[in-house]
């Protein structure tokens, strides 16, 4: 019985969910999909992203000290994730969704770092991006200074605010579901209204509540069920990139978080198109 204070502490720790916080955030932030190549080691990077700005290859974010982020400090990680700044002082291309991740709290970004450090290190040298002649990494500094605008403030309602955090900060849904303008920035006026030219040349659907082009005719239950299972209301199942998102992220969220995402999406302005 001498150990009861320790047991009590352990119990409080477990109830608070501290052991799973980082793992849950890791799923909610969808790190795995982009940072794992087809048939590659988890988080060792190398997945190609063909974009109008060239082909980018995701880096190794496993804790390997030589080729991954094993030597990074937590502060360096938070700066990279939220501000797009590499430890060597250069700036990342926004194919890395820091314009979304900058909405994360420092505590959550730090928990993500702690979780990544518990993953298995894999040795895989990063591959240089294939850029068009007019694009270079140094341009990303002025891009961040002059073009990247301030994010919109969160809604005041706590459920909607949680939903917004899951949709915008963690889920970074807008990276695919919002079209980009000439400078590669999310087009604010068409927030989550879909695009004909999404990743891998695929059409990305409008997820605003527009009745004709968006989710206006879906009921809330169907949307939650979609995020859980990938099932569309007509009995079809989603495929391709969204099936990855369902597998890696939305099916792993708590029902309460899925409901918050749906409530937030249904609170948005309906935009027709694309």
């Amino acid at each position, binding site marked *: 019985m001498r150990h009861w204070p320790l047991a009590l502490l352990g119990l409080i720790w477990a109830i608070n969910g501290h052991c799973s916080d980082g793992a849950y955030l890791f799923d909610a932030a969808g790190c795995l999909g982009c940072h794992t190549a087809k048939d590659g080691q988890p988080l060792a990077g190398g997945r190609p992203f063909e974009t109008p700005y060239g082909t980018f290859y995701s880096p190794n974010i496993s804790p390997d000290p030589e080729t991954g982020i094993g030597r990074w400090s937590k502060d360096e990680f938070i700066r990279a994730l939220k501000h797009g700044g590499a430890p060597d002082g250069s700036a990342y291309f926004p194919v890395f969704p820091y314009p979304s991740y900058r909405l994360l709290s420092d505590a959550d970004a730090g928990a993500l770092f702690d979780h990544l450090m518990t993953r298995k290190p894999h040795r895989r040298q990063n591959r240089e991006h294939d850029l068009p002649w007019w694009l270079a990494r140094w341009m990303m500094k002025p891009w961040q200074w002059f073009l990247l605008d301030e994010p919109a403030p969160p809604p005041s309602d706590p459920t909607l605010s949680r939903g917004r955090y899951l949709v915008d900060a963690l889920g970074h849904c807008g990276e695919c579901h919002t079209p980009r303008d000439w400078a590669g920035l999310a087009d604010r006026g068409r927030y989550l209204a879909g695009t*004909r030219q999404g990743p891998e*040349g*695929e*059409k990305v659907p409008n997820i605003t509540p527009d009745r004709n082009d968006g989710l206006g005719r879906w009921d809330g*239950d169907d949307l939650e*069920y979609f995020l859980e*299972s*990938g*099932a569309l*209301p*007509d*009995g*079809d*199942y*989603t*495929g*391709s*990139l969204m*099936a*990855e998102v*369902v*597998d890696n992220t939305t099916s792993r969220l708590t029902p309460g978080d899925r409901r918050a995402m749906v409530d937030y999406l249904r609170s948005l302005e309906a935009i027709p198109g694309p």
Partner: protein
Amino acid sequence: MKTFLSLITSVLLAISANTQASEAENYIKYRQAMMKAIGGHMGAASQIVRGKVAADGDLLMHALALAELNRNLTRLFPEGSDFGETKAKEEIWDQWAKFEQAAADAKQATADFAAAAGGGEPSQIANAFKAVGKSCKGCHKDFRQKDD
């Protein structure tokens, strides 16, 4: 004579290429209709399994239909049917063994669902239905293009 023969040959070749192309088109139409049938039964079964409608008596019919429709999915994808109006990815034929496995998973999952629907507990039915959905999504993830 030589010209005549080569003319005949090219006409015959054109006819056979045309037949092959239209045969591929026929298979594409056939499998799209089959997939719609599967989707129809999945959508209906989902409404019942999730308790949205009181049609429990029909669940077994949908489950049996799904098991029959998924019995041999690979025959819907003959070689050469990747041209034309199809969302089937080339990966189906490039990674045929993987595709066969996905089809076998769908067959197993729908057979299990039919068995559960024929007198299983509600939780068993729900889990079996979930497994069917997982196999649909798994195959669409690797082998189906998005709409364009």
